């Protein structure tokens, strides 16, 4: 089992930390293997921020993600830039208020969440990345919930722990509810133009 993932958004959304939490969960709390790489460059400030993860039950040899099983896009720019890297039939998880979809999402399984709004409801916009991590775990099942929660505990300062665990739960629940509506709902809800693949 080898999965290639990318989490992308704009600087300040915490996408690197989100990838870090997932990678740590897999390699330390699940006993699997995870290799995280980041895109470095002048565009990293203010513009696109992105981190890729290769996770596997075997040691990871090739370090880069080249054919994504899952793209988590948290900005429109991130979506446009990275959606061509998603493999046919791969998954696309989006911050649905920030990412307008187009034809490029047609053959993907798309799941949306208003992560920023949910974060604001919890009282702090900055936890949207952890909401996304919870959502990711629920939808993809690639990272086990308990391992991810342990990893959240490792990664955030103690005074923000409760808030972050709540954020994780919120994202996770949202994902579970979305899945309960049936696998096709994601696409319909996100109104991907043309026929979406189930």
């Amino acid at each position, binding site marked *: 089992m080898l999965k290639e993932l990318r989490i992308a958004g704009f600087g300040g959304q915490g996408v690197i930390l989100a990838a870090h939490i997932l990678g740590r969960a897999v390699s330390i709390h699940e006993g699997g293997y995870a290799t995280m*790489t980041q895109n470095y460059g002048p565009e990293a400030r203010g513009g696109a921020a992105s981190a890729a993860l290769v996770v596997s039950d075997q040691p990871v040899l090739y370090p880069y993600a080249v054919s994504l099983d899952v793209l988590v896009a948290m900005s429109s720019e991130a979506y446009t830039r990275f959606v061509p890297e998603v493999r046919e039939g791969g998954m696309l998880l989006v911050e649905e208020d920030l990412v307008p979809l187009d034809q490029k999402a047609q053959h993907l399984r798309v799941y949306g969440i208003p992560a920023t709004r949910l974060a604001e409801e919890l009282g702090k916009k900055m936890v949207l990345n952890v909401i996304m991590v919870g959502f990711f775990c629920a939808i993809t099942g690639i990272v086990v919930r308990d391992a991810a929660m342990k990893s959240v505990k490792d990664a955030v300062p103690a005074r923000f722990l409760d808030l972050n665990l709540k954020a994780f739960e919120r994202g996770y629940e949202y994902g579970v509810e979305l899945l309960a509506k049936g696998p096709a709902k994601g696409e319909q809800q996100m109104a991907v133009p043309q026929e979406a693949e189930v």
Partner: protein
Amino acid sequence: MKADQRCVMTGTHFINGDAACCEGALSAGARFAAGYPITPSTEIVERFAARAPQVGGLFIQMEDELASSIAIQGMVWGGQKSFTVTSGPGYSLMMEHIGLAAISETPCVFVDVQRGGPSTGLPTLPAQGDMMQARFGSHGDYVTIAICPNSPQECYDLTVKCFNLAEKFRVPVMFMMDECVGHMTEKVVIPPAEEIDLYPRRHASKPPGEFQLFEAGEELVPEMAHAGEGYKLYVTGLTHDKRGYPALNPAAQRELVGRLFEKIRRAQDELTMVEAEGLEDADVVVVSYGITSRVAQKAIQAARDKGLKVGKLRLICVWPFPEKLIRELAGKVKALVMPELNMGQVVLELERCAGGQCKVIGVPHPGGTVHKPVEILEAIERGAR
């Protein structure tokens, strides 16, 4: 000698290669780093600057790489373990002082997180283009040791090893990372201090007056005295005699430079550090180092799936080159394949040691990313024909 627990971050971490290298240096007992931060090595000194005060260490951000590479040597003669960290452009500037470390037998570690070049090249992308520079970069004749990690875990483990080798042989040791390994985040296990063996400094066993600063000791390596201990220290880049005094004549040159080479030549077996697998019945052996060895492993698996007999030889220590091993291997196989992230550097040495006994196929790559496994696979298939 064991590591000092106060400096060892024992535990399981999810950190990048740069961070792991810094922790390795701290575990190895480095208490001083001087550097001029440069991508993609910056995170090493950034972390060291934060960690050093916790362990009684010091980081100085110097005015440039020339200053960095000499400041660390001053600190070594002051009694501490030291290192500097850079990437291509800065490594070029350090060359003169690498020669000084070689002739003055100053044990220290130079970390080069290689990026695409020449010149400023590709600051944020990987290459392995400094390998020949690590061997021959400084003027004059000298030998060094160069070690290549292929994971953050090895960035930790092998940094400790680099410091140990520096102390044991009293040479500047080159830790040849690359951007990919430096910026890649993976699980890194840092053991308890009591499991980390450190090679202690070869300190003067004779009292001042009887002690000669550059007298060949065990394994041809002189013992060392530090400033402020009452010994007479004369440390110079000029050719010197046993006392360390300049001796500008052919006999002194022969004795000194001869010994600098001989102390490493004698240790060839110990310095043959490789990871080998499937060599016994291999038709083709892929010889690689650093990050490229992981991509090569993927190609090796694909070739085996096609029924080819392929072995793996990963060089952990590239300099000195494992000459004996390659000579033997070249007599048994059809081909040696060497992928590297440069246009063909270490492959020249591979060719030399193979001595025409088998095909040697380089898989050059200008850097900026790693090879596609298929590029290496094609070379394996050519070798097997």
